[in-house]
């Protein structure tokens, strides 16, 4: 079981409100990702759930029981830290067994659980090494192992992959997703990397300045962003946001169109412009087109074989069905 409910939770450090009154419910077995720019309060929110910080007001429930005042150890949650936080003077085996030892479980049972966790995470060969002798990915797995043996109600991950190199990150991303499928335990995951958010989450929570901007499935957020911030934050490269005359034509303060929903051709279209920088990724090419009468260049995605050069005259045609319209407060207009 791992149902977590937050009701009107706030957190302030002195004068600074880090978390504004906030409601959120996390269902049992869900993989929830908190995503947002740095300083948005996502890590603080996770630490509030973990109990490492006290809430300033509001209520936290875990499995229907009030956990607001419970100390971290009593909440039945396990956390994986950004720095892994392994105990450097203990072997991998002792690291993983530490929570069991603290729970005064008997030795044989401890060993059995550690072996089990090590098998799940492919750590069998490293059990007698010290954390200092392991690579980044292995340390990460030990940290996860230490979380697994406790059989927690939910796992909390605080930017666990940000210290790994790009290739390893892709691998660990898959491993964590795989683990979630196997354990079907609730996982709450904090990241600033939207690729991690999009690929792993059942539910994404987008935060900005201590407020929840939108909660929804990854594709929900991608297809129907509720406001300009989410529209600009989710998606890579960013959605093109146009203000002024173009937006007024559609009765909106701002219109947004994703790079893949714009056609590019050399013969004719709605917007005329000149190609600026083009980024060739092989499979895709991103053109930054400077259109007449627009302040910002427009990013356009096209196939890898399309070949325009700097300074070429091109015409862009947005797909009207994929246009997002926002009012002057930045909220979505249906």
């Amino acid at each position, binding site marked *: 079981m791992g149902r977590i409910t937050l009701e009107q939770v706030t957190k302030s450090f002195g004068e600074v409100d880090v978390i504004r009154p906030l409601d959120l419910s996390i269902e049992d077995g869900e993989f929830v990702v908190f995503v947002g720019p740095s300083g948005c309060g996502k890590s603080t929110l996770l630490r509030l759930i*973990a109990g*490492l910080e006290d809430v300033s007001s509001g209520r936290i429930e875990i499995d229907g029981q009030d956990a607001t005042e419970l*100390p*971290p*150890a009593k909440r039945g*949650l*396990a*956390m994986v*830290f*950004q*720095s892994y*936080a*392994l*105990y*450097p*003077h*203990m072997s991998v085996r002792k690291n993983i067994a*530490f*929570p069991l030892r*603290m*729970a005064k479980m008997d030795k044989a049972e401890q060993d059995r659980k550690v072996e089990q966790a090590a098998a799940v995470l492919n750590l069998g060969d490293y059990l007698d090494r010290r954390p200092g002798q392991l690579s980044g990915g292995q340390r990460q797995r030990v940290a996860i192992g*230490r979380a697994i043996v*406790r059989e927690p109600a939910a796992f909390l991950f605080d930017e666990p992959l940000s210290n790994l190199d790009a290739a390893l990150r892709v691998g660990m991303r898959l491993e964590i997703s795989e683990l979630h499928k196997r354990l079907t335990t609730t996982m709450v995951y904090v990241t600033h990397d939207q690729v991690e958010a999009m690929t792993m989450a059942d539910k994404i929570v987008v935060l900005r300045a201590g407020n929840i901007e939108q909660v929804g499935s990854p594709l929900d957020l991608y297809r129907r962003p509720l406001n300009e911030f989410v529209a600009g934050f989710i998606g890579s490269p960013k959605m093109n946001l146009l203000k002024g005359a173009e937006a007024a034509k559609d009765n909106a303060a701002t219109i947004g169109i994703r790079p893949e929903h714009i056609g590019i051709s050399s013969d004719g279209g709605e917007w005329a412009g000149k190609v600026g920088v083009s980024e060739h990724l092989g499979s895709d090419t991103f053109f930054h087109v400077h259109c007449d009468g627009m302040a910002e260049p427009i990013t356009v995605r096209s196939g890898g074989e399309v070949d325009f050069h700097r300074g070429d005259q091109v015409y862009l045609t947005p797909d009207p069905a994929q246009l997002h319209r926002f009012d002057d407060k930045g909220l979505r207009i249906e």
Partner: protein
Amino acid sequence: MATQHSRTAARLMISPAVILLLAWMIVPLALTIYFSFLRYNLLMPGTEAWTGWTNYYYFVTDPSFTDAIWNTLALVGGVLIITVGGGTLFALLLDRPMWGQGIVRILVIAPFFVMPTVSGLVWKNMFMNPVNGIFGHIATSFGFEPFDFFGQAPMASIIWIVSWQWLPFATLILLTALQSLDSEQLEAAEMDGASWLNRFWFIMLPHLARAITVVILIQTIFLLSIFAEILVTTNGGPGTATTNLTYLIYVQSLLQYDVGAGSAGGVIAIILANIVAIFLMRMIGKNLDA
């Protein structure tokens, strides 16, 4: 080659300093060893003669020599226990965020800046003196008999004074070590269900092991040669109750004017200090490697 050339140049440049340092050490050492084999008493000038091991024989068989060895061990051991234990406690306290942290930290470090003779005299006359001392006044005001610290518990009093001086050093080093502990490790342990005592025992103490090693090594070297505090308070007495090896050497060579026996004592002290150093390095050196 350039590297060969620069290496030679480097050796040449550094040699004056090395030779000076070497001479600085070798000359007194050689002289001490030479004197220790002479019959050399300042009261009988001109009668210096080679006597072989006689000085050593008399120094070692002197009953106060055994006392001095035990006193030295008690002094070093007692001060180490108090400063490492107390230093850890102080470091834990000072590590907590509190109002006026900067001033409190400076106050804690202050005893280290007080000269040994001054602190010895202050403790002797203003605190521990049964008539004039604060402790005596407190005892009298509660209707108790004042305790004569240097008469009844001379060694414990000296240990206390020296500990007071060295506590700041241990606190400072242990505090810095404690501050370098990754707070996420403590949080992880907290999530893992470790109580404060468990966190201290399993996380903080192993992290402090290296710093404690450094404190023990450095303090032992200095504590073996404690002298000023004894001279200004008890003069090694009553009897030989507070005479350590350093003080015994002083008594031999400067109070009994027997330079030969004093030098023999000095050589024994050097050997003992080296044995202790090797022993300590062996025992806790493993900690430094890890």
